[in-house]
């Protein structure tokens, strides 16, 4: 069972990543450092969330 805060965070992260990839693909600016920047932000929020709940 996934609780509501986790569900909201997962949907938020998914939208964030999909939007980022779509946006950077569109203007052909998706470089490795930019991708890593989004990825690290995602990992950071998920790691903190896990530390609070698990």
């Amino acid at each position: 069972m996934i609780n509501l805060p986790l569900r909201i965070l997962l949907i938020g992260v998914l939208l964030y990543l999909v939007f980022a990839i779509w946006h950077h693909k569109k203007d052909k600016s998706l470089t490795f450092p930019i991708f890593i920047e989004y990825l690290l932000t995602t990992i950071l929020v998920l790691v903190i969330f896990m530390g609070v709940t698990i």
Partner: protein
Amino acid sequence: MTNNMSLHNWFLPHKDTHKKAHLLNLEAMLIYVLLFIGLQVGFSIFSYLKPGVLGVAGNIETKKVIELTNVERAKKGLGIVVENEALNKAAYLKGQNMFQENYWAHFAPSGKSPWDFIQGAGYRFTYAGENLAKNFYNSDDVVVAWMNSPSHRDNLLNEHYKDIGVAVVTGILNGQETTLVVQEFGTTEFLANKPAVSVSGKQVSVPTAALNNASSVVSTLVQGSETKLSPPVLDPYLFTKYAGVSVISFLAGLMVIDLIVLKKRGVLRLGSHHIAHMSILGVAAATILASGPGAIL
């Protein structure tokens, strides 16, 4: 080089190149991630080395849990469940056993089942059920969590139940001080089906052999003198929550400063993606603040 490493470059975009503050760059982000992973690993190792120092101190009352359960039942037009001493004992024995065998489940690693505790405590049921909770801070949150889970809600609002027993037991589980809440429901009234127990949304028929040897099972249960534990020194979940929200707020603050400074300089960097980052940081802060370590089973 000296100019690049000056203090204001850690917090503000670079004067000449307008690059992001050092504390917002990739290396800094990697360090934040590693720090929080290290914190979790550190808590796990420390819990193993020094059991009981870390943990959650809950303030949960059995009477309040029973009262809130009956409030929820009344909302659905169901009869109240009456506190039963034998079920209270069964719940207490179950909680103690989880600490003794160090598990978090309806069935013990040694094979003990919910009906072993209920029958062993002297409650001859025809239908029974069990809800478990751990690491909650108050009684209201426990019942709300059960009500938000379909299988636990079905158990709590089952029309067959007439009696209830609740125990709040504190002990060391996986090296951390933990408050367990065990809720046992039951009825001794005759039902058409053979005796069954409802756990995790499933009806489990009680084996005939188990009905006959309940007294022998209960003799193996250590009723244990409850050792008075001092409150844990540190709550790792609350610590992570406050540290996490602080770091997230700090990063969002740096991004706002970055945007303001660059706007003032007239060199707004469109490739900063700050709005997207701030949005996800905001969602993360809200969900982290709304979350806790409470778990139900």
